[in-house]
């Protein structure tokens, strides 16, 4: 009989290493640089991929088990919400426009993220980070699909969501989030993970998550709230991965510091610019508000990220200089954005409205330095025009920033009554920017940003007319563009005139009243 040999007990860390990096090997039949051709051109120097600390230790069997439990619960709630006409328990029909912003602006980015993480999950030559990126790629597929599934039921009853695929690809305002993500994805693998894994998912994540998900909870949207909370444990993993990558790069070689700092500067600014949409949603679109953009910025950026950057200071990282301007714009951002969307409401796929007196009192309490002085008079004037039957509406497309693609609506920092104008010439052509920070990003990689397809330019170039014949005698360019964009009158305009508002009231009436 064999003498039983006692099995060595492996520690968690050792065991996980065998389950992941132990699987890899250094190829000899092909050169390592040919197998992983993309992880060195950005100039990031990695000397020892084995020094990578796994940010979490999840093997596939455990992953399948935990995630399946979450999915079972989530879909049970989504089904119940749909069956019970959960949309009629919302605080107010205006809330549905938040859902529209989400499906049109954010859900397609989750699929982009799945592809981006698949790409770097193939390209990093260290097995540890590759495995972590593969899992995130899979999680992002989850988020794309759970969002599409959760919002599917809203789409059955309300406008502005049915064409989210087409609108995300073509509608000018949605090029703000789309170009943001494509910018990151078309960068090298290290820039991508700095942009998305760190700047967006770590530094700015709470500024997205809290307004949307707490906003959903506050306004009776059980469906969106549930997928948000269900995604939270995935996001916790994504955050630790993002932070680990930053530390790894900085610890591997001092030459990485200026590259990483440049990316942090760029992506903090790009991220905050995209969050303009969130700031507006938070201050103007939620019928029952969670907190103001200014309050969220104080808690989630100034306090939390202040501590983060102090922690990174030991590597030589400093707070991105653009933050100074973000602070100065803090009390203007959401107001300027809502004014812009109000004026351009004919080309939105969600509805807008003027803030009520009660809304405006809330806004002046939250923004005592700016609201009454600069924005209340404008809203009151527009309200008067609406009453008189001549509502104000912008008739031409605005000038957009070549980098962030937001209309150049921002004032000079510290001088709210002067519009900021920045431009430079490249290859004999003039390019415009919303700010010095977007201009710096352009000047660092002009050959990249000259490719951007700005909505207004695409319209004037005739790229938004579909099959219509611009030489025809009765050619109506705006009508052709609307048809190509698949933007219907039901999708746009004022909330009070909308089919959504009328239906919501009718259906809610049915749900509350008794038949005679």
């Amino acid at each position, binding site marked *: 009989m064999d003498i039983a040999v006692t099995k060595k007990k492996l520690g968690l860390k050792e065991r996980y290493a065998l389950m992941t990096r132990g699987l890899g090997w250094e190829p000899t*039949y092909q050169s390592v640089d*040919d197998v992983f051709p993309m992880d060195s051109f950005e100039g990031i120097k990695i000397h020892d991929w084995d020094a990578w600390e796994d940010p979490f230790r999840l093997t*596939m*069997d455990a992953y399948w*088990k935990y995630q399946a439990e979450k999915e079972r619960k989530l879909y049970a709630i989504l089904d119940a919400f749909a069956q019970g006409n959960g949309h009629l328990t919302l605080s107010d029909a205006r809330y549905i426009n938040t859902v529209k912003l989400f499906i049109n602006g954010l859900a397609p980015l989750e699929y982009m993220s799945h*592809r981006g993480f698949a790409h770097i999950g193939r390209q990093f030559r260290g097995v540890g980070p590759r495995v972590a990126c593969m899992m995130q790629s899979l999680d992002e*597929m989850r988020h794309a699909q759970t969002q599409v599934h959760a919002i599917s039921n809203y789409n059955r009853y*309300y406008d502005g969501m049915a064409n989210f695929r087409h609108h995300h690809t073509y509608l000018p305002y949605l090029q703000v989030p*789309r170009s943001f993500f494509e910018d990151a994805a078309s960068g090298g693998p290290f820039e991508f993970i700095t942009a998305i894994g760190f700047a967006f998912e770590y530094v700015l994540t709470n500024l997205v998550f809290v307004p949307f998900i707490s906003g959903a909870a506050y306004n009776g949207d059980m469906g969106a709230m549930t997928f948000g909370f269900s995604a939270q444990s995935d996001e916790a993993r994504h955050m630790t991965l993002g932070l680990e990558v930053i530390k790894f790069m900085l610890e591997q070689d001092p030459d990485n510091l200026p590259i990483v700092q440049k990316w942090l500067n760029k992506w903090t600014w790009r991220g905050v610019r995209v969050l303009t949409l969130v700031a507006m949603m938070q201050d103007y679109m939620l019928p029952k508000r969670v907190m103001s953009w200014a309050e969220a910025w104080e808690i989630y950026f100034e306090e939390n990220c202040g501590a983060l950057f102090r922690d990174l200071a030991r590597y030589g990282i400093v707070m991105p200089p653009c933050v100074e301007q973000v602070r100065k714009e803090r009390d203007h951002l959401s107001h300027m954005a809502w004014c812009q969307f109000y004026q351009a409401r004919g080309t939105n796929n969600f509805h807008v409205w003027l803030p009520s007196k009660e809304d405006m009192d809330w806004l002046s309490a939250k923004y005592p330095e700016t609201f009454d002085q600069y924005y209340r008079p404008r809203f009151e004037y527009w309200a008067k025009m609406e009453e008189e039957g001549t509502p104000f509406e912008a008739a031409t497309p605005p000038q957009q920033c070549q980098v962030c693609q937001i209309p150049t609506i921002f004032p000079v920092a510290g001088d709210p009554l002067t519009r900021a104008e920045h431009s430079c010439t490249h290859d004999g052509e003039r390019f415009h920017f919303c700010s010095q920070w977007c201009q710096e990003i352009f000047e660092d990689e002009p050959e990249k940003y000259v490719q951007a397809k700005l909505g207004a330019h695409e319209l004037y170039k005739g790229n938004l007319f579909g099959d219509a014949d611009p030489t025809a005698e009765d050619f109506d360019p705006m009508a052709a563009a609307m048809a190509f964009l698949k933007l219907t009158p039901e999708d746009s305009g004022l909330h009070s005139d909308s089919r959504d508002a009328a239906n919501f009231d009718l259906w809610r009436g049915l749900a509350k009243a008794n038949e005679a």
Partner: protein
Amino acid sequence: MQMDLKTVNIEPKRRSYAHVAARIGAEKLASRYQEGTFDMQVEGPQHYRPLWDPAHDYFDPDRTRIRMQDWYAFKDPRQYYYGSYVIARSRQQETAESAFAFVESRSLADAMPTELRETALKLLLPLRHVAWGSSMNNETTAAYGYGAAITQGALYYAMDQLGIAQFLTRIGLLLDQPEALETAREAWLHDEAWQPLRRLVEDLFVEKDWFEVLVAQDLVLDGLLYPLIYGAIVDNVLAMQGGSAVAMVCQFQSEWHAEASKWIDAQVKAAIKDTGANGDLIAGWVRKWRARAVSALLPVAAIALGDGAEEQMDEVLADFDKRLAKLGVSA
């Protein structure tokens, strides 16, 4: 007892998203697979060319020579979207877990004839590297494929292969000491028996056409490896010689391959059906990689079968060629 519960009945404005309705008909209710898959990837103009591949758009159908009129013809017969995928795998994982627990609690590994256990370890443990290679090669399609239908399926395959590499690692820890994994790695890197297979896997790492990688890896290599190693050797030969404990802890792999081959078969069929010229390309790829896979797998099979390897391979090949014929691939 039947109860009639009354709810407010309101008429929906539409049944699904417009891009889904355009594919299935406006009157149809969409499945979660359809809503979570169709047109999830941007098609049309993109803002910037990738710095890492300036010759292509970020999403570009030209990263393969396969041509498709409809990239969403790559449907998954299992209709896996994320939720149904993880739920299916969590069930299989539970079964595997109880098999590992059963073998461990009854010390079945120790009850195995020593020689048989050594053969099993020699055969199975280097395969964890092969599975990891398959995972990487499917990650290639998840990253560079075109359309959400195929990238989604390929990512699930990549994660499954990572899972299999981890189950094989656990088999090593169950049947032996952790050092056994190091011995197996040495064999993978240096033993003659493994070198043709390692060369094949590494050659696929640098192959640029993602659909060729998919055909070579999922249809050909895995299509021969799983029936040969798990079907013929583990479930039959080793089990007959007292190694049923090994067969128990490999159950995940056998069941998985039966299911995953339905997926890859559907992808190949869809490509051939969509555009005639795809058939010739695929047949050429199958011919090229089939010959290499056979010669790479023979010395591996010989670890367990000795001189009987060739005969066993012939049987596996006969089945494989029937499978190809059904797909319309004339190899």
